[in-house]
């Protein structure tokens, strides 16, 4: 299992460690290779030694592709083992233009490797969603070598946590929008701020937005522009930012929110959606990228990030308990049928079995 880095509370690391545990339970011998690790209770080998560990052409190297990294590309070209490309998607660089030249370069580098990976016909392309696999199929990869396996996650731990609302504002009947995810241009935070402003204008002037997620210092100009936009819309006192929410706080946030409002313009899968579904929180979302597949109708999905539509959706959810209950039920059913850990483990077993049927 090869990936750039392993760290707690990181989605790719969660997926890697859970996959490792599941593969070991199947009886496979799994070794981890990463450039850097932090607070991980698992032996990790340096990537440059990986070829010494390959003993047979039947061995499998699973690379978690989420950034531009030349080493795995060269390794996949020369190594004598089966290649699985676990693809978590890379945000297109256009989203970061004007905000961060470093992000633009990193994302461009990462996406520039898509052609090379598609051309080498890996034994298996294992995308988080059909949207992710499309990146390879459009570039000529054999669809028979593509499979979908949603990412492993820690939602069960979230379900088991006792809610901790001490850092959250008192609910007291005030409409509350929730957004979970890092602060980045692709997340469409400006539209979210507009939606909050529309809620305040049309629904309740006390409406609030709870924004859970961190801002990378490299995107500081984006953060400044966001704050500026909040001031222009007059909502700066109505946005509660929670950079480092624990599992217990996140659970409380989902419970307190009227809806998870996901207006992100680019998602390879979107883990917050399954968190909301598992916890029964209604979802209002922009139908971009992988979001419609992840939700499969278990939410109010719109084709545009219109602030008035979001505000009217919130108003309807607050005034229509039946709709709220229906969306909550649909979400929980979707989670149980498609994303619960036993389902993912079965999916991984099938993917590994499929690997055995793919001709070299």
């Amino acid at each position, binding site marked *: 299992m090869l990936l750039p880095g392993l760290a707690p509370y990181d989605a790719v690391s969660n997926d890697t460690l859970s996959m490792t545990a599941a593969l070991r339970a199947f009886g496979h011998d799994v070794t981890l290779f990463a450039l850097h690790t932090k607070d991980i209770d698992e032996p990790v080998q340096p990537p440059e030694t990986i070829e010494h560990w390959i003993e047979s052409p039947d061995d499998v190297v699973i690379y978690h592709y989420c950034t531009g990294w030349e080493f795995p590309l060269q390794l996949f070209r020369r190594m004598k083992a089966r290649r699985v490309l676990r693809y978590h998607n890379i945000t297109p660089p256009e989203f970061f233009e*004007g905000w961060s030249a470093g992000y633009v370069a990193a994302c461009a580098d990462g996406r520039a490797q898509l052609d090379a990976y598609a051309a080498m016909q890996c034994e298996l392309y294992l995308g988080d969603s059909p949207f992710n696999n499309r990146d390879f199929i459009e570039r000529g990869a054999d669809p028979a070598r593509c499979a979908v396996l949603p990412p492993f996650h820690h939602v069960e731990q979230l379900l088991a946590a006792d809610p901790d609302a001490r850092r959250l504002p008192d609910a007291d009947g005030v409409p509350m929008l929730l957004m979970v995810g890092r602060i980045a241009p692709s997340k469409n935070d*400006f539209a979210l701020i*507009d939606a909050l*402003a*529309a809620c*305040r*204008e*049309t629904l309740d002037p006390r409406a609030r937005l709870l924004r859970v997620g961190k801002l990378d210092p490299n995107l500081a100009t984006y953060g400044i*522009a966001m704050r*500026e*936009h909040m*001031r*222009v*819309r*007059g909502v700066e006192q109505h946005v509660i930012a929670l950079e480092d929410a624990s599992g217990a706080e996140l659970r409380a946030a989902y419970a307190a929110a009227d809806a998870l409002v996901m207006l992100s313009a680019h998602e390879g899968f979107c883990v917050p959606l399954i968190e909301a579904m598992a916890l029964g929180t209604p979802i209002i979302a922009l139908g971009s990228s992988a979001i419609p597949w992840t939700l*499969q*109708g*278990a939410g*109010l999905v*719109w084709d545009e990030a*219109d*602030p*008035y*539509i979001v*505000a*009217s*959706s919130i*108003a*309807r959810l607050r005034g*229509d308990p039946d*709709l709220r209950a*229906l969306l909550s039920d*649909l979400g929980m*059913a*979707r989670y149980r*049928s498609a994303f619960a850990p036993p389902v993912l483990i079965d999916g991984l077993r099938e993917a590994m079995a499929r690997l055995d049927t793919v001709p070299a």
Partner: protein
Amino acid sequence: MSSDPTDEYLERVKSEIRAEADAARLRAPLPRKALPESSTAEAARSDGIDRGRLDYAIGELTGLQYVAFVDNAFRALLKRPADEPGKDRQLRLLAVGAGKAEVLGNLRFSSEGRRVGVRVRGLLPRYALAKMVRIPVIGYVLEWLLALAAVPLLLRHQRGADTQNAARFHDVDAHLARRAEELQALAARFDEMKRELDETRAHFAVRAESLEQRATTLELRAQALSDSISDVPDLRHHILAVNHWSVSLQRSFTEIDEAAKADAERVQSLIAAMYGAPDAIADREARGARWLAALQARANAPARVLDLGSGDGDWIARLGTHGYDAAGVEPNPFLVARARERGLTVVIDEPFAWLARCADEDLDVITCSGGLPGNDDALADAFAQLRRALKPGGWVLIDCTRSQATGVLSASRGDVARTSRAVAASGFSLDASASLTDAVLAQRR
């Protein structure tokens, strides 16, 4: 996932929500809030951007020219300083003849400009016209029509421009006159600087001459030093000669040492030969008998006896025969070999050096067949060692025979009187009752 009735229900709900949204959009446009006065002023102070102002007339933004115009447009419409690529793009547009309204419209109606939401009164129609004239054919015709319609206005602008240009020319003339005066002042200053430069050059010439003289002196000294260094080969020759001589000297010393060693061996061999002469043997036999009698009267066997300068060991052999525990020390290897052939215990060493290593009060009797050291200091030290090694009441017997041949030819040998004085002065009691004429017998006090 969801069944058809559920899908239909959700679609119906969504269409209702959409209708609500459209109605709300008309009722309540999104707010564009100006900042409080204090924070606006603070922001303007920090970077010169008036973030609180969201309403302009187009004339306020078009008064500036070129770079200043673009910079101001970014600050007013996007509320941030211009980034280099964006600024460059707008400047290039201006350079190819685009109007200011088009530049302002580009910024205002970009996605970023829409987010900021600044209102510019009169901009939209001008921007729309600027964009429309870019439509092929139609745009060209439209531009012609606009130009024709604007002819009276253009003529008025032309006349105004003529007047402005005349005024400008007047200003430029005045400006040029001022510049000419400044140039004259600069020329005067230049002449002055040239004079200073000449003076400096002359000063440098004097210093250069001085330096040249010093260089000549240094050259002469260097030559003298070089001559001195030419003597170094002779010095080297001398050092090598001394070295050669010292090596030769060392070899000579080695040869001398070896010759001396050979001579010493010959002497010791000779002494050993003399030791075996019949007269010497007979003499030692007689003396030994006397000494034994004297000793038996004073120290009973098996007393421990050490003989210093024990020769071929005939004396300690005699002592052993009479029950004494006797051993000897002798430096002559030839004599020691002979003694050891007889089964006697004899050590090869200098006698008094060996005595110095003996334990305190360990011996009953010490006999000095080889005599005593010659110089006074060594003699005093020898007596001190004899006293230390003897048990209290132990006996010392010192040979003073003139004709005795041993490895040590001591100056004190044969001088009974001197030896007796030295023994008495060293913590021993002389015993003359044995009536020995060739030896001194004394007891440790």
